[in-house]
């Protein structure tokens, strides 16, 4: 225990004294958040939404459209399809909804033209509208009205880009911090013979690995707390879900990427090759993992790949909890997938990474 305690303290000291690690763990993501938050601060407060009716609407449909008009984040434009399509192409609309004249649950469908240039806004608009449709359907089928509360939350919440960005950025930062700090550190240790020197002592390698894992889980929590605080204080972001759940997701995500970090440590034989491996894996996830763009805005084939990436589960569950107040049960699919990924990656790490020299 003394060994583990001392090694953990040492790992914290090394982390804090490593300027590069500190920069990429804290300053860079904060910088990114501030810049992206400021840029989108105003433009994202209202979404331009187009509504197209190809025939005179029924009473039911009319009422529904009135409902849409009440949504405070929407700037509604009504027009004919060709005009609205043109506006969408000119980036004047986030999304255009083509609504059937007679809105009946089941057979009728609402066609959505989403602007791929404004994925966050279009995704949010689709979310809100589908929420309203569900409510309408429930009302029509005589269902109880207690779902209204949930719907009101969605409606009352001004979903700005920063709201969308924050969970993604938290997820991304966890990934970057764990993969890079673990891989750089352990490959340096391996290359310089430090690991070999350490196994010349009676210390168990697992103790050393564990101390580094503990430190990174701690940093994950601190990192997440700092980003959320900044977003809440300076950008007025509202965190709807449970902080405990956010912490749990952060730790699960961190464990998953720690496995990946150690796997890379095993594969990379020199420090120079660490960024090659790490970027090969992390870079695609940076764009496909739902950090900056909603994966729903991807072409189907790409979305089918993107939705199984470890980062996607982390950023998705984080976003569901932060912006929608999802419960554990609602994100359990993401949780299971993350546990699965963590197991796979830890097994991979066990297979590739070893304190001993490769030669034997």
């Amino acid at each position, binding site marked *: 225990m003394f060994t583990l305690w001392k090694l953990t303290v040492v790992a914290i000291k*090394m982390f804090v*004294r490593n300027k590069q690690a500190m920069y990429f763990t804290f300053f860079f993501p904060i910088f990114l958040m501030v810049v992206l938050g400021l840029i989108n601060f105003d433009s994202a407060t209202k979404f331009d939404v187009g509504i197209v009716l190809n025939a005179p609407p029924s009473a039911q449909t009319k009422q529904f459209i009135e409902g849409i008009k009440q949504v405070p984040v929407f700037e509604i434009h009504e027009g004919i399809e060709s005009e609205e399509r043109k506006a969408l192409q000119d980036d004047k609309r986030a999304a255009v909804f083509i609504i059937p004249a007679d809105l009946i649950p089941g057979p009728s469908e609402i066609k959505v033209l989403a602007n791929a240039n404004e994925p966050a806004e279009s995704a949010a608009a689709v979310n809100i509208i589908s929420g309203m449709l569900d409510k309408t359907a429930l009302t029509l089928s005589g269902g109880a009205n207690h779902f209204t509360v949930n719907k009101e939350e969605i409606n009352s919440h001004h979903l700005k880009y920063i709201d969308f960005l924050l969970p993604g950025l938290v997820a991304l930062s966890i990934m970057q911090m764990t993969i890079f700090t673990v891989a750089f550190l352990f490959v340096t240790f391996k290359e*310089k013979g430090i690991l070999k*020197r350490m196994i010349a002592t009676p210390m168990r390698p697992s103790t050393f690995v564990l101390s580094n894992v503990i430190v990174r889980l701690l940093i994950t929590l601190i990192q997440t707390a700092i980003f959320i605080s900044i977003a809440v204080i300076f950008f007025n972001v509202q965190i709807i879900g449970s902080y405990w759940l956010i912490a749990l997701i952060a730790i699960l995500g961190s464990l998953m990427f720690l496995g990946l970090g150690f796997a890379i440590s095993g594969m990379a034989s020199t420090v120079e090759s660490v960024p090659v491996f790490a970027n090969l894996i992390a870079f695609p996830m940076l764009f496909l993992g739902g950090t900056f763009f909603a994966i729903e805005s991807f072409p189907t084939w790409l979305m089918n790949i993107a939705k199984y990436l470890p980062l996607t589960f982390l950023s998705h569950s984080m976003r569901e909890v932060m912006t929608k107040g999802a419960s554990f049960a609602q994100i359990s699919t993401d949780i299971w997938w993350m546990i699965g990924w963590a197991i796979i990656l830890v097994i991979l790490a066990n297979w590739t990474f070893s304190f001993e*020299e490769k030669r034997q």
Partner: protein
Amino acid sequence: MAIIEVKNLKKKYGPPAGGLTAVDNISFEVNEGEVFGILGPNGAGKTTTLEMIEGLKGITSGQAFLDGHDVSKDTRTVKSLIGVQLQSSSFFEGLNLLELLETFGALYNRKVDAMELLREVQLEEKAKSQHKELSGGQKQRFSIAAALVNDPKVLFLDEPTTGLDPQARRNLWELITEINKKGKTVVLTTHYMDEAEILCDRIAVMDHAHIIALDTTQNLLKLPGLSTSIHFLVDKPLDIEQLKAITGVTSVQSEDHTYRLTTDNSEATLSDLFKLSREAGVKLVDLQLHQPTLEDVFLKLTGHGLRD
């Protein structure tokens, strides 16, 4: 009493490494309290031998015991009894020397007086420095300090002075001698003859994965076939036949007033030579004695030089 026993130790690397046999069936013992040297050229198998005894490398066949513990079975016990300096060891970045020694202490689950250890290796004024700020000699002294954190019974040093300047080497030799005087057994590898001669009580000479000689340093230097040569100048010529008749002399060469005798018994040859010169009334000037070195021993044993 033997603190290390090595029996038929063998290390064979698998096909990826070319099926190389790095250490081939070697046996030796190291006595408690001695400085034991493994001498040989690069690639002879010195480091592999050391690392098998230290429990760092797997043993293909044979056995090694340290203080009665089987190295391959009680690996952790063995590791707690030894101090190890590897050929090239770095330490964590971002920690100063005191913190590094305390960390190493923790690896043995013990608290250490880091300052006292630094004092022992004369690095106390560097206590707050980082390892990368040290000179080559200081780095080696520090890694010896790190090897001493657990007050080991046996200290293993793998080529401790390679790459150091002469002054730093001498410092390190003194340090090693001091540590040995305090009762620690020292096992070191080297490819420097002078180092082995100065430090070691006994030497195992290794070449191509085998031990080709193992004896005390003095005995190795008396190996049959090694000869001492005696050079001198004279004021009047000496009779070559008389010189050849001197006890121990194996050959005589002369040029002008310079003579060179080779002998396998230098004490007897010298006393006879002095007697001869006195009787002949010849004055010997600038007499030099060239005793065999381990370099000669190695050449004699292997037929090739150490640096080939």
